[in-house]
């Protein structure tokens, strides 16, 4: 899923200063699962914005709305009633949702309430780790099902660097060295010999370094 973290409230306040009628818009997908952009967070953030305006003696009306998926046109096209008379929308969906709203309401200012961070998942309650870099050329079939592109600090492809010790990454003692894990996994699967092969330079052209990317499913594209 897409993991996003809440922006500091002060930053949100600065973005919204001067706007009198604001709609906080949540999303029922990934950001609900990571507890930063769901209905509950909409209620909390809206209350916080009302309270802060009151304390500062400012006029501010804050509406609340949440839809199942801000990243799909079908879901956002009917949000009109909630937002049409607002002068700003604070979307706490991922960056895709924010942009879909901005395209849907070109005359209204749309602001992001979260920082969209990575594709990952919870490893335990409240702890999320990156698991995929969206590199467009998945190689984890050769690395024991574990991704060195997203989980190695240097995205190495030929094994651990010279800084891995005690199974930890040199960058942070709390980060596992993914190449150590890959080594152990391939050892378990009796595939260690594959680590002797030299992996050639990766084709990054399908990855996030080459914006913007597009995928077309020909069989689904409506022909005129």
């Amino acid at each position, binding site marked *: 899923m897409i993991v996003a973290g809440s922006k500091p409230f002060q930053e949100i306040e600065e973005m919204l200063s001067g706007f009198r009628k604001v709609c906080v818009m949540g999303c029922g997908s990934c950001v609900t699962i990571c507890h930063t952009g769901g209905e509950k967070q909409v209620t909390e953030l809206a209350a916080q914005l009302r309270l802060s305006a009151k304390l500062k003696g400012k006029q501010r009306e804050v509406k609340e709305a949440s839809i199942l998926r801000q990243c799909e046109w079908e879901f956002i096209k009917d949000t009109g009633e909630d937002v049409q008379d607002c002068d700003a929308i604070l979307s706490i969906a991922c960056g895709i949702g924010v942009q879909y709203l901005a395209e849907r309401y070109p005359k209204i200012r749309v602001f992001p309430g979260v920082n969209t961070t990575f594709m990952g998942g919870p490893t335990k309650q409240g702890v999320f780790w990156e698991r995929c870099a969206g590199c467009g050329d998945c190689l984890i079939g050769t690395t024991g099902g574990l991704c060195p592109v997203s989980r190695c600090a240097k995205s190495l*492809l*030929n094994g651990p*660097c*010279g*800084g891995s*010790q005690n199974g930890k990454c040199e960058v942070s003692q709390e980060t596992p060295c993914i190449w150590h894990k890959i080594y152990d996994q391939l050892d378990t699967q009796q595939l260690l010999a594959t680590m*002797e092969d030299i992996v050639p330079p990766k084709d990054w052209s399908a990855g996030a370094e080459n914006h913007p990317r597009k995928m077309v499913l020909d069989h689904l594209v409506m022909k005129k």
Partner: protein
Amino acid sequence: MENNPHTKSDSHLERILRSGQFAVTAELGPPRGADRSVIEKKAEMLKGYGDAFNITDCQTSVVRMSSIAAGRIVIDAGIEPIIQMTCRDRNRIAMQSDLLGAAALGAKNVLCLTGDHQKFGDHPMAKGVFDLDSIQLIQMVKVLRDDKKFQCGQELKDCEPRFFIGAAENPFADPFQFRAIRLAKKIAAGADFIQTQIIYNVEKFRKWMKIVVDMGLHEKTFILAGVAPLKSKGMARHMKHNVPGMDVPEKIIDRMTAAAEVKKGKEEGIKICLEVIEQVRGMKGVAGVHIMAVEWEEAVSEIVQRARLYPRPTL
């Protein structure tokens, strides 16, 4: 090249190693400024005390003068540089461009490194590149030299850069069993010589060298054992706890602590370094030493002389 048809480059270091003599390399760190006289002074200090000198490439991810530019200044001062190149700050286009430039400026040795992560340096917010890893970089330099081809496969129609290709290996990082395999990968990619991480744990290094020799890797590349004089007990502790991939045994810390009490830290540091050199020199497969006296270049001449590695051979 004309003198010796078996060399891959015109490097003095390569000739020393191929002649079977115990090689000495040392490190020369470029300054954090644009003053070439800093390098000239260091070069003057180091001249004659090694066969070639590593010019570090923004080591520990701290901005310093370019290793290629500093390398040219070193050539002008009459000593041979080993240009360090990291994958951290450049993509494959920039690296090949820099390789051509370095060769045109007279560089004959290049040391291929992945590079320290930018988090450790003075610009932790920088975007790391890591388009290639060190093994892929080694292969790219070799293909440029031997096949006259760019990484994309296109032919290099002009003069190819003829480098003696170096790489690093750390016997003290994990998983230990993979470390010799990783060395084998670097050799297969094209590493002509290897400089190891700094050795304080001689016994672990001995174990690693045994695996390396059993695999016959010492016959395919020249292995230079990395050593470094400790300056103080603080430095010893810092190395142990803060430098990734370093193995500083407790007995070394104890010796440096005891020496600090009688204000003889530097002396003890040099003594330990000399002991390590003595021990690794006797090991099968070790072709030389690489002295990393970080910001303490003055120590190199003393170490080389006291280790009876002076004067350096001329070829």
